[in-house]
């Protein structure tokens, strides 16, 4: 600054009428600074470098990570090379997690809404106030509706979800709704109908693998995404059926662009070939299964020629694939996959896959489909009080819910007869069904739900048909969201509680089941940066406030309350979480130390336990205790017991395309698109459209187009490619945010939830995300 300017600026300052100012003095009473040494000192660390083992939380996989912490700051997240589940790898998201704590977008302190919902007017409140607010609202709702289930609790999976359920069970609502019906509930139901469990695939040792609709190269699942390529050079053959030429398709020995919704026909025809050519495993079938003759009879009509007409894959290819599958058995895998929220008949599709594995004896053996093992942890012996003022979960108690509000769910001509009209046939108690649950809430059927607590889930983006989700939120008198970031859903909340990131806090141990089971946990790598809390602390805080409100405990046995205070509050929530974790692993000598050092531990040297379901006397969790081709429970429920081919109930009209859902390797859910390191890989999504179709409409790559379903319309750039069937369209989720949640992806690309139809699979309660038909026009 020039001398001259200095003089001017000084004169300006001295020109202030300073009398009052000089006479006044601010004392440090409001100060945020203290003299060094006057409080517990947090010395500036210098030159320190630590490697801290933990587990990732950027998606559901929980891969092993080792944080490199320099001077108290997380510099890099490395893979844990010893980790049995993640095989020593770490994906783009896992690496990008290192930016998470240092993002300015984080929620930093509890926020209370002061304006209208969604208006974006908030005030900061203390945690004490927040806990009081939540407890008081829960109490008010209970008082008003005389039904604890009037508050719905939504959550996504994660280690801290355990403590979320402490809160849920302490309040006593039965209306919980989790992620599986947006993801894999039909898969679990279909495979379980045959084997009683939902198994894993031993891709490490398989010789022949068929993947139908699973994009393991991009939708990463550990260890599958690792194994299916890392060990491929050993001669593994990979067959991929997908309407899109995915990265997995690019890895395949043969890629079949299967007509959507007809994968089942392909597999039924394979069974036709294998059974009629006597290529199935007769010993296995005789020893372990039930209903083979009915199956044999059923598949007779499903000839390869018939299937060719359905799935548009040449009959000869089907025959070839069937023979190869049988030849490599039992080291053949028909891949169960993960997300199966595709079609209305998905449970039957998955049942079909499971039966194929069973007839060839590719079960519970090296290189086949193998039931998950898990390592037992010591649970805390706790019993939550039994509350009188609680009604059964609404998607169970509702009447005519499906018939009246989800007509598409009961239109399937094949399965129509026995389909439930009130609620889903085989609903998982805790998980609920997002689509039917939301319908029930919207219709107050059978009772009003007026409170909504949401832990790290983002239904506004994740559940098909955003408009309905917003409508559902409007019915609520109280909305509380616990999250790390201001998600689309948090934006509509009354109170937002900031959750500590997975890198700053302790998470309890979890047994991760699989062929290679491990116990994993999380420990902090860095100090907490802001005024956040973990679900463990939040549950404790809210429950303490709840205990101060008598009306919340007037419908239980007083003895229950005493036990509750002792067993749950004093013994668990009031103690450090480390005590909880130590208790969990107390049956595993050295387990705690191993967790601290490696972030995980395993037992039996981490070797797979093949064959325990093949031992004499083993009872499968089916009605007959055997592997069921003919499902007795389905029969009792009035459903078709065998996976008969289900013709689609609705077909695209002229000019309509089927909309597909898929993932990339750098974003799985809707929470990572704003991470700068992932954003720079993909800055917006684009609509995949086949070259010929685009040609007809004069659409070129980069042109703006409008994709429209009867739910909504989105504007997006086109990506003209040969990599998709001409009758399908696709864009990846995570962009075009409804509310501008994330600065980088706001208004770029298109949102999935905004156009997806809310179709329901009424057997498992799963959403059907591939049952939406759209049109496309040049913008």
């Amino acid at each position, binding site marked *: 600054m020039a001398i001259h300017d200095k003089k001017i600026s000084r004169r300006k300052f001295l020109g202030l009428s300073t009398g009052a100012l000089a006479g006044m003095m601010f004392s440090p009473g409001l100060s945020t600074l203290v003299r060094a040494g006057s409080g517990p000192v947090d010395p500036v660390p210098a030159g320190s470098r630590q490697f801290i083992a933990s587990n990732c939380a950027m998606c559901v996989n929980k891969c092993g990570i080792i944080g490199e912490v320099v001077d108290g700051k997380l*510099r*890099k*997240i*490395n*893979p844990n*090379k010893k980790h049995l589940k993640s*095989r*020593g*790898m*770490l*994906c*783009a998201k*896992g*690496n*990008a997690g*290192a930016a998470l704590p240092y993002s300015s977008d984080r929620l930093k302190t509890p926020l209370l809404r002061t304006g209208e919902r969604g208006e974006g007017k908030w005030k900061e409140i203390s945690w004490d106030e927040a806990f009081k607010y939540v407890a008081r609202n829960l109490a008010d709702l209970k008082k008003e509706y005389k039904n604890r289930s009037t508050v719905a609790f939504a959550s996504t999976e994660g280690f801290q979800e355990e403590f979320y359920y402490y809160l849920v069970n302490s309040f006593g609502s039965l209306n919980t709704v989790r992620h599986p019906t947006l993801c894999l509930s039909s898969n679990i139901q279909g495979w379980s109908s045959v084997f009683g469990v939902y198994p894993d695939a031993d891709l490490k040792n398989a010789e022949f693998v068929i993947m139908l609709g699973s994009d393991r*190269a*991009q939708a*990463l699942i*550990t260890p599958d*995404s*690792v194994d299916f*390529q*890392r060990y*491929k*050079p050993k001669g593994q053959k990979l067959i991929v059926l997908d309407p899109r*030429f995915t*990265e997995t*398709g*690019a*890895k395949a020995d043969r*890629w*079949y*662009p299967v007509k959507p919704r007809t994968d089942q026909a392909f597999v039924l025809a394979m069974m036709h070939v294998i059974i009629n050519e006597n290529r199935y495993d007769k010993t296995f079938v005789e020893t372990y299964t039930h209903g083979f003759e009915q199956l044999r009879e059923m598949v007779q009509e499903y000839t390869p020629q018939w299937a060719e007409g359905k799935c548009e894959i040449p009959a000869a290819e089907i025959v070839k694939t069937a023979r190869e599958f049988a030849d490599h058995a039992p080291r053949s895998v028909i891949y169960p996959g993960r997300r199966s929220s595709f079609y209305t008949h998905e449970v039957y599709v998955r049942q079909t896959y499971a039966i194929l594995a069973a007839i060839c004896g590719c079960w519970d053996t090296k290189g086949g489909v193998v039931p998950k093992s898990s390592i037992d942890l010591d649970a805390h012996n706790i019993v939550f009080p039994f509350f009188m003022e609680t009604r059964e979960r609404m998607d169970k108690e509702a009447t005519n819910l499906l018939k009246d509000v989800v007509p598409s769910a009961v239109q399937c001509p094949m399965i129509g007869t026995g389909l439930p009209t009130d609620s889903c046939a085989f609903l998982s108690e805790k998980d609920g069904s997002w689509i039917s649950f939301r319908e029930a809430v919207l219709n107050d059927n059978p009772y009003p739900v007026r409170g909504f607590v949401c832990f790290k889930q983002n239904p506004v983006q994740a559940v098909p048909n955003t408009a309905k989700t917003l409508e559902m939120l409007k019915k609520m008198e109280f909305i509380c969201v616990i999250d790390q970031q201001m998600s689309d859903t948090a934006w509509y909340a009354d109170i937002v509680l900031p959750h500590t990131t997975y890198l700053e806090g302790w998470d309890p141990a979890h047994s991760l089941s699989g062929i290679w089971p491990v116990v994993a946990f999380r420990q902090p790598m860095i100090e907490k940066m802001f005024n956040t809390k973990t679900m463990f602390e939040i549950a404790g805080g809210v429950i303490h406030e709840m205990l101060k409100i008598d009306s919340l405990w007037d419908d239980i046995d007083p003895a229950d309350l005493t036990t509750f205070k002792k067993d749950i509050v004093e013994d668990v929530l009031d103690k450090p979480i480390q005590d909880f974790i130590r208790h969990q692993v107390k049956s595993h000598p050295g387990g705690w130390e191993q967790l601290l050092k490696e972030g995980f531990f395993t037992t039996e040297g981490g070797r797979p336990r093949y064959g325990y379901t093949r031992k004499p006397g083993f009872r499968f969790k089916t009605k007959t205790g055997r592997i069921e081709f003919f499902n007795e429970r389905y029969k009792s429920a009035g459903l078709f017991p065998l996976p008969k081919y289900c013709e689609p109930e609705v077909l695209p009209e002229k000019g309509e395309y089927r909309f597909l859902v898929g993932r990339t*390797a*750098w974003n799985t859910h809707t929470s990572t698109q704003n991470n*700068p*390191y*992932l*954003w*720079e*890989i993909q800055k917006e999504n684009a609509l995949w459209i*086949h*070259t010929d179709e685009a040609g007809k409409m004069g659409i070129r790559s980069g042109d703006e187009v409008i994709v429209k379903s009867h739910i909504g319309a989105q504007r997006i750039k086109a990506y003209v*490619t*040969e*990599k998709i*069937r*001409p009758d399908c369209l696709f864009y990846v989720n995570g962009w075009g945010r409804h509310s501008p949640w994330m600065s980088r992806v706001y208004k770029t690309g298109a949102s999935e939830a905004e156009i997806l139809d809310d179709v329901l699979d009424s057997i498992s309660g799963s959403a059907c995300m591939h049952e939406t038909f759209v049109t496309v026009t040049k913008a």
Partner: protein
Amino acid sequence: MRQKRYTIVFDTQKCLNCKACTVACKFENEVPVGDDTYRIWVTEQPLQGRFPHLHQAFQPSQCQHCENAPCEHVCPTKATYRTPEGVVLVDYKKCILCKACMAACPYDARFVSEHHGAVEKCTLCAHRLEEGREPACVETCPTRVREFGDLNDPDSEVYRLLISRSHYRLKSEKNTRPRLYYLI
């Protein structure tokens, strides 16, 4: 002690195009977010064939650590140099940012780092090698596309791969003699 000859051998057929390596590299080497600032990349090779007969390969790549490195030849101040192990490095303090190395590199492996005030590129994570750790891109890869090791060690995986499988090097016609190999 025998001189080490570091190399990376790529089995690109295993590449999932998952970009884990690119993100790992950015954090490990503190490379800023930016369209021009990257040390490694994963190229989606052009799609071949017509629907439904399609083929596509993915090719991760980075500085090839050439034995006959054009970038080293043209560097006026010896800022770019080769270590005895064959790693091509940049001494940031000596770089004058003339960018001749960027013009000379046939692999477009170099870029200007504002942070270092110099041209930077893949170092094979030399700082990790000193600690006996693999380069970050090698370590993080789900399918282990990259294998890192010492070509002078007959027991190494890289040696085994190169004597047992056919391979090629990028732009071999330039006679840069890259130290990075691609398996066929």
